[in-house]
């Protein structure tokens, strides 16, 4: 089945230790998104790629970076995780325009010790 895959599903890191979360898709969608969802809160968009064009949300901290080496893969890098970065991180894709239906991965739950 075509889908959005996130690895790992659970990630534990130490305060200040860089961490990378991975997302891959077999849908061949142009747009890939990263959302942060803290406990009991709505998902919040961090940034998205339209093909290779990176679009950062204005309030996304500089601590969060992203890479999209090809159509299928997108990475979320957290340079110096703080305790407040503990959350579920959701990857999503959409076919063409950003108004299209988004297809979500299962998420990676990040714990910061």
């Amino acid at each position, binding site marked *: 089945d075509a889908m959005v895959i996130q690895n790992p599903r659970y990630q534990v890191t130490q305060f200040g230790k860089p961490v990378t979360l991975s997302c891959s898709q077999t849908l061949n969608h142009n747009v890939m*998104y990263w959302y942060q969802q803290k406990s009991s809160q709505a998902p919040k968009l961090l940034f998205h790629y339209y093909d290779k064009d990176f679009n950062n949300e204005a309030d996304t901290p500089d601590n969060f970076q992203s890479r999209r080496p090809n159509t299928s893969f997108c990475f979320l890098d957290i340079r110096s995780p703080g305790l407040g970065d503990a959350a579920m991180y959701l990857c999503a894709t959409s076919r063409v325009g950003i108004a299209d239906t*988004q297809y979500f991965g299962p*998420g990676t739950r990040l714990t910061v010790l």
Partner: protein
Amino acid sequence: AQRVTQPEKLLSVFKGAPVELKCNYSYSGSPELFWYVQYSRQRLQLLLRHISRESIKGFTADLNKGETSFHLKKPFAQEEDSAMYYCAQGGKLIFGQGTELSVKP
């Protein structure tokens, strides 16, 4: 800034009862509006979008521009409808806080 409001964090109904999950948005133009659902231990997925005017799993949602609302309705709730429901606006998906629907037997 665009904003989506879901006033109820939790909505509990009995099986067979009608259900309405409320959603209000703030956008003066023609918004793109969606309902996403997350069943227990499953990923977030699209339930319906206003532009397609579909009925999915018995749910419908009507856009009311005068009231800036996009409430989700189902005439007879089923236990399998128990889930977290998110209303969302726009292509970049501004999400509401979500409403947890619990359908009791």
